[in-house]
């Protein structure tokens, strides 16, 4: 997995690319740190270029949600497709994290 961050007026958009799995633990920790640092209150994870997520990856998204809440920020998941969308739907992650198309 790799990512790029774009901080806009109202929100920071983080584009995740590739596969998000257990192996990305360290990288996601770094990313969560960066998301905590920037000014935007809304932290959007753009998942349109994410091709695969496993259960450990979902776990990391939930950690990100909690860390953002602790920093008084909001995490939003956006534009998931394919396998990623299926996994988020089956696990009803929308009950915990706002998901936008």
């Amino acid at each position, binding site marked *: 997995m790799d990512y790029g961050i774009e901080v806009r007026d109202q929100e920071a958009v983080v584009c995740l690319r590739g596969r998000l799995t257990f192996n990305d633990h360290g990288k996601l920790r770094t990313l969560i740190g960066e998301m905590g640092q920037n000014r935007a209150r809304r932290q959007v994870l753009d998942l349109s270029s994410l091709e*695969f997520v496993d259960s450990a990856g979902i776990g990391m998204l939930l950690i990100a949600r909690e860390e953002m809440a602790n920093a008084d920020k909001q995490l939003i998941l956006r534009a998931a497709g394919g396998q990623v969308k299926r996994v988020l739907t089956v*696990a009803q992650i929308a009950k915990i994290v706002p998901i936008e198309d």
Partner: protein
Amino acid sequence: MNGDGPELEPRQRPRSEPGRETASPAAEADQLTDGIAGARVLIVDDNRINRHLLLALLERGGITSVEQAEDGDDALACMERFKPDLVLLDLMMPQLDGFEMCRRLRADPRWRSLPVLAQSSLNRVEDRIRAFAAGATDYVTKPINAVELLARVRIHIRKHLMLRDLERYHSRTRAELMLARSMQERLLPSPSRLAELEAETGVAVQAHFAPSSELGGDFWGIQTLPGGRIAVYLVDFSGHGVGAALNTFRLDAICRQADSTADTPAAFLAAVNRRLCRLLPTGQFATMLAGLVDPVAGVFRYASAGSTAPMLWLPGDEAPRLGDGSGLPLGLLASASYEDRELPLPPGARLFLYSDAAIEIPTGGQEGGHQVLDDTGLAALLAGRMRDPDGARLLAGLVGDLHAAGPIDDDLTALLLTRRG
């Protein structure tokens, strides 16, 4: 032996070793306490004066556990008794020479990684190559430079001790993991238990359980209930390996305590979830499918916490039909509630439950993409096998199909329940 001297370069008196002059007492103490002081060195040399020189040199370097041998035979005999951490080996000796001694040493698995530092007055490249070919670790030529020899001895001993620690750690860890694995396997119903269950209820159960490392984050359970009903569940913790495996033991205890007889599957999941929420840190969760086989009503009632979709096959069907696995995984939200769902289960029907490893197999796909097998792909593989009356053969065949589809890098559990016709 001829040519085996002079032994020390005259100007290399150990007291004037460069580097040692500036070493503080503390640094020297460090060197003595890093394990090298207790190291055992075997000096093999046919020349008594040489041996004494090397002995003095090692002692000055803080290595006091030293034995001496005067030829290869003598040295091999000494190996058994002394078990050195390093051998300082002369090459030209009467009887068994250094080359042959080294070869014999390496033929014994116990000494395969022992550092052997050849020291010889043979200084042609061919001689060094011969020594390395015989199994020497390193080579110094006479006249011996005291500083260089001690430095090399230290390096090889340190490496050897580190490697030995690592090997010990590795074998201890492996033994512990194997024990833990057998404990985890004992959480699962035994083949004899499944045979009893089949005799009792007319439902045959075949299972495949394959953690991707020694320990896994999957487990499953089954029990008979009054009225000929059967409770079954399949759990998949996020991640895999030791951490996920520890969670399986916790959840197993919770499942055994939770009274699954009175509850519907949805109420059972909600109760398990409430207890698990108190235990799991953020980022860890489990998907779970809990179901009740009711032969009297001819249905399979189930609830899912983000599990895979159960697959049902009815006699005469072309392909299995998919149930609904959606639901919030366990351990995320204490207030989560679950939904009871139903699939028909007449005599002859088959139910297939599986962990997500089975549908996350990468299949490559178009333009080198990241496609996975998916539940429709899995259903297609199953469709070709569902008519097989032999459940064990069916499951083994399907597992073969899955491995042929692509690499499986997660814990794979698969359960096949067949209701006798």
